[in-house]
């Protein structure tokens, strides 16, 4: 039998995988392909285009954003990791969350967020399509928040060593000289304001995880709050404290602020906005919306004299339309947060002990 060398082909390694495989983290051609085709098209900017081991930023080229010379401003720097499951949930996905989370952490110190880095830890087997969708969502969230992603990294871990995808983002922002926002600045007499309905994100995640169907779909409130904070700072430069009410919800934030400022906080439970569907879901599961996470809501502590103008500025912004004053800072019972209950009683609203656990009956 004659040998047919003409039809012999070398089996080329498969490159268009439908899922992530270990090779995508190898540092070789597959990884270069992944970055070139999946990541790079989403994040084209001059700084990222440097493609160096680190990105070099010329401070003189940062637009001053109306805050004056760069030398008078302060740098805000933060990092946060995102491990949410499921990766895509009603109202958002892990990519959008990873951008908004870090943007919001910067905004809560009064900073104007400028640059982000993103590290993707990808579990072998993640569908390429899912990764593509999430990377696109990171890019879109950056545009929406007005920040540039200027450094990045990907790693692939073995199947079973991750939960699909983890994202870490770090961010840098600049704080105008006269802004002084910190957790320890709450003063007796200050007004306590929330920017909108509490508990949407946590209940959106929980309803998907537990397969609970409600007539109205509960959507995550994930959103970049830097625009809202900008509007608030335009109304008053003397905001004392800002916090986004993420894990632990409103209750955790108020407790942290009370403890850091050595003051008491009192609020009216009835005034805390909660969407009816979130309220119903919490009732079903035996949870308290005060303890449920948000990803696009903030708590502001503002001098009483400035409260009305800050509130008006918030309500004029799309992400603060339901902003409301819920209570005040008091000198009594330092470090304790006390709620006036709906029936006129009062109770201590404590830090949550650990994981939120549904009650048995």
């Amino acid at each position, binding site marked *: 039998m004659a040998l047919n060398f003409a039809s012999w082909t070398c089996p080329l390694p498969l490159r268009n995988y439908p899922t992530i495989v270990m090779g995508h983290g190898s540092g070789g051609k597959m990884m270069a392909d992944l970055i070139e085709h999946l990541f790079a098209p989403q994040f084209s900017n001059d700084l990222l285009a440097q493609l160096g081991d680190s990105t070099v930023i010329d401070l003189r080229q940062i637009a001053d954003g109306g805050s004056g010379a760069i030398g008078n401003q302060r740098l805000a720097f933060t990092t946060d990791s995102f491990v949410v499951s499921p990766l895509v949930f009603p109202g958002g996905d892990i990519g959008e969350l990873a951008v908004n989370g870090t943007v919001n952490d910067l905004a809560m110190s009064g900073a104007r967020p400028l640059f982000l880095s993103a590290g993707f830890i990808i579990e072998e087997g993640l569908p390429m399509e899912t990764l593509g969708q999430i990377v696109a969502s990171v890019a879109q969230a950056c545009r929406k928040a007005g920040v540039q992603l200027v450094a990045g990294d990907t790693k692939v871990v073995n199947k079973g060593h991750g939960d699909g995808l983890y994202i870490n983002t770090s961010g840098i922002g600049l704080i105008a000289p006269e802004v002084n926002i910190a957790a320890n600045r709450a003063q007796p007499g200050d007004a306590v304001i929330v920017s909108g309905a509490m508990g949407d994100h946590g209940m959106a995640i929980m309803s998907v995880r537990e397969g609970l169907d409600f007539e109205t779909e509960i959507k995550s409130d994930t959103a970049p709050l830097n625009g809202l904070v900008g509007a608030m700072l335009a109304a008053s430069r003397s905001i004392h404290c800002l916090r986004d009410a993420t894990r632990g919800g409103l209750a955790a934030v108020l407790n942290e602020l009370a403890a850091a400022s050595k003051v008491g906080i009192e609020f009216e439970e009835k005034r805390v906005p909660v969407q009816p569907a979130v309220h119903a879901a919490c*009732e079903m599961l035996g949870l308290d919306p005060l303890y449920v996470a948000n990803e696009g809501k903030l708590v502001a502590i503002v001098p009483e004299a400035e409260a009305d103008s800050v509130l008006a500025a918030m309500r004029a912004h799309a992400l603060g339309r339901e902003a409301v004053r819920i209570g005040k800072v008091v000198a009594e019972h330092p470090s304790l947060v006390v709620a006036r209950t709906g*029936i006129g009683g009062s109770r201590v609203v404590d830090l949550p002990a650990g994981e939120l656990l549904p*009650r*048995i009956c």
Partner: protein
Amino acid sequence: MKYIDEYRDETVTQRLLDEIRRAATRSWKIMEVCGGQTHSILKSGLDQLLPSEIDLVHGPGCPVCVTPLELIDKAIALASRPDVIFASYGDMLRVPGSERDLFSVRAAGGDVRIVYSPLDTLKIARDNPNKTVVFFGIGFETTAPANAMAVVQAKAQGIQNFAMLVSHVTVPPAISALMESPEVQVNGFLAAGHVCTVMGYWEYEPLVKKYRVPIVVTGFEPVDVLHGVLLCVKQLEEGRAEVENAYARSVQRDGNRPAQAIINQVFEPCDRPWRGIGVIPQSGYKFRPAYADYDAEQRFPEVQSIETKESSLCISGQVLQGLKKPNQCPAFGKECAPQTPLGATMVSSEGACAAYYRYGRYAESQTPKIQLQESEAGLGV
């Protein structure tokens, strides 16, 4: 929210409080049996709004709190097995056993899952044929029908790799035990509304006659609780001792017959130990012989030998019997807090100690009412 807001209405609450103030001419100790009621009372601050004549005593009705330490240790032993998937209602995971809790078992690699319904565990069993799925079947008469249903369905569907660690308890024998105890001085009871939704309230009729004590079937929202308190106070002031239903929108005298039937099909009464209290005769359910195959203690006989003693510092037993308030415990808020619980009453959100810790510390430092209770304790209540 409809059907909730009406029962948390401030005007109605105030009107009921006024009526209770007018009705109460003497001091009365009223025990709310159910942990859900304790939770609601402290969450809404009702305890501070009631007139000083009315002392609400928190009863042994939190299923998490009364589950004996020994059962928790058995659960931990089962959950630690590589061939077991252990499923539980969420708030059992943080209850400390003698050495660790179910969260720690999970962290050490045990497959411990939170479920909302025991029926969910059957799906887990079908999806994992090479493991045994053990469900922690705890609770009062409220959770018993669903737990029994899971066993019936497992049998009907031929699901072999499913078993239940059962620690069911029932309310009427606990009320009897409390009334028989010479230390307990409770004048009236608010019966647990959801237990009565299942069981009805005919079981309580012999108790009110025998012990001359009013029992009012009561719901869980502030208005429900106050309605129950009002009916109870009126009975006490008028010298009556009857079963009354203040939760008619959910409870009928006969209860839910099909639910009772399925409990009886799977379980039979047995003596049960209550954490911190001791064994109460005929106060629980165990598997009937026909369903013994599903008993996790039969399936894994080695757990039967586990025996555990309770912490000596913890006074949860006295709290559950209404003899002491949580803040009268020397360890309260010190050695014992929700993050580091010594006893189950500090763990469950329905537990009296956790409810006091979470909702009560402000009141404790501000209002004279609690100080009064402390001085009462000094008199040896």
